[in-house]
């Protein structure tokens, strides 16, 4: 079936997405390369390593997503979880 122009918005085309990934990768590589030109002024030891923020940001996010994933197994419940709970009502005695 032929798609309407709306369905093939340029941002959703595979070719655009491929180019976005290429540009994004180049930007990331450029940011790391810039560290060669810009002197590191970190105050603490770890921060003085090369491109600290790049690997630290990436690593922190991976750790947080994995932690959320693990906690999710324990904490996630169906949307109507609380609706299925007994309600607290002060009812007059049927008798």
């Amino acid at each position, binding site marked *: 079936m032929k798609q309407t122009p709306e369905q093939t918005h340029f941002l959703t085309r595979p070719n655009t997405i491929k180019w976005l990934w290429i540009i994004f990768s180049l930007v990331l590589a450029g940011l790391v390369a810039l560290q060669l030109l810009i002197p590191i002024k970190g105050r603490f030891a770890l921060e003085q390593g090369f491109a600290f923020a790049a690997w630290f940001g*990436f690593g*922190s996010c991976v750790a947080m997503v994995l932690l959320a994933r693990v906690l999710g197994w324990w*904490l996630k419940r169906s949307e109507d979880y609380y609706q299925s709970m007994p309600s607290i009502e002060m009812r007059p005695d049927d008798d």
Partner: protein
Amino acid sequence: MIEIPGLILFAGALLVALTRGVVRTAILLLAPAITLWWVWSVPDGVVATVTYLDYSIELVEGSPVRRLFATVFSIMAFVGALFAFRHAKTYELAAALAYAGGAVGVCFAGDLITLFLFWELMALFSTILVFCGATEKARAAGIRYAVIHLLGGVILKVGIVALTVKTGSVDIRALSATDFGTWMVLIGILLNAAAPPVSAWLADAYPESSPTGSVFLSAFTTKTAVLALILLFPGEKVLIGVGLYMIFYGIIYALLENDIRRILAYSVVNQVGFMVVAVGIGTETAINGASAHAFAHIIYKALLFMSAGVVVYRTGFNRCSDLGGLFRTMPITCVCGIIGALAISSFPLTSGFTTKTLISEAASEQGLVMVYYLLAAASAGVFLHAGIKFPWFVFFQKDSGLRPKDAPWNMSAAMVLFAAACIFVGVYPQVLYQLLPYPVEADFYTPYKVLFYLQLLLFSGLAFFLMLPLMKRTLTISLDVDWLYRGLLPMLWAWATEAVSTAQAKAKKDLANASSTIITWLDRHWGDGGVFARSWPISLTALWIAVLLTAYVLVYYL
């Protein structure tokens, strides 16, 4: 009394409730504007004093930090009113103005009694805003919200009384949590800041309000708590730990969440955590950081709630799993949402960058290595859970097939104003820095700092897209400490009522059985033909008397 800037908003709220049409709109917009002018006419020091029960009540006390918070609250009330006036109900608008009035009142409260009074007024009017969601869920969430805040009010009140009894003073001054009274005051304030273990009330209540109500709710309660902490507990070290917990709590729960406004609500806790950490550090840079970040946060968070509110208003959907691809037909909402998301993520050239860096700098200056690294990790996490997740799942992600219209003109105007403010403060931070309580000398737009944040944030973005399969939205909620009163308490109640009714039934049955046994026994012995009811021959009686007398004689002689 007219010297109290907050009262202008209360008067405005009353008039809004009584008027309609253009007049109502004019009052709605003028009241915050006049308040803003009034806020800036309040000089430093105590301005208005009355005597109550032998206490000197300082209704208005000016200082740079108080004016800063009152300024942003007034701006928030104005832009929020612009956003809401065509779609919100009259009582919602009136409650929102009164809520803002309470917040401005807290800003200038020179003593704990005045602070408590406006604090409770805020609790009252914000509860009405939660109820404005007008659903059964909103009603239940509103009741829970009210109970938590009234409980917090009682704790704060107990603390104020204990403090007053001990010191004889109700003045607002820097305290240290060392005794019962100060701990109670600190706990009462932290409860409003959504600190652990009761952070859940915020994400429970705010998303249940109306699309317009949640915009106001995001701004005032938690930020007045931050101001109260700045005024009462600067440098209280326990706040560093509390704030760090809030930061990571907000990130993890936002990552698990499917409801777009609940993601933003968790993000409020996360951002207030940054401010609480800063107050805990307590240096001049840190207090500047907490104040500036509160200012920036109110604007970009309201912008994000506006963006989400427009989406909910236009589509009727709250969940990421129902949304996606809205960038096609909602460009203004999308762009403004992205600007808000970039600002919350501290992207260079946005307000968040110029304010959050103050907090990191404060940790760095004090040599708090772990706090510094955790704040850096949290900055990456903010980009992950709010900076990308919110716009990605709402406006991009997949084509949900929804083609809603963009925001109405007033909502667009409000969003554009706040988006412009996010960029303005990011580009010209000195304008905000001049309003801070202490001078700011550092310039954070150094090549190293900018590169640091760009690396941190864009590599977080890479992590987000690489780990998208692990973040697939599910039709779920996440259990929190509120499970104790939303889950465990009803279960215990059901168990107790069941146990009582079972015991009642058993007791009734046992009583019936016992009665029946007694009646049968009585009937057998005293009923017709019973052993005690029969006639006996006189000879048998004589025989028994003889036996008894013989027994008596025997016992007597033995």
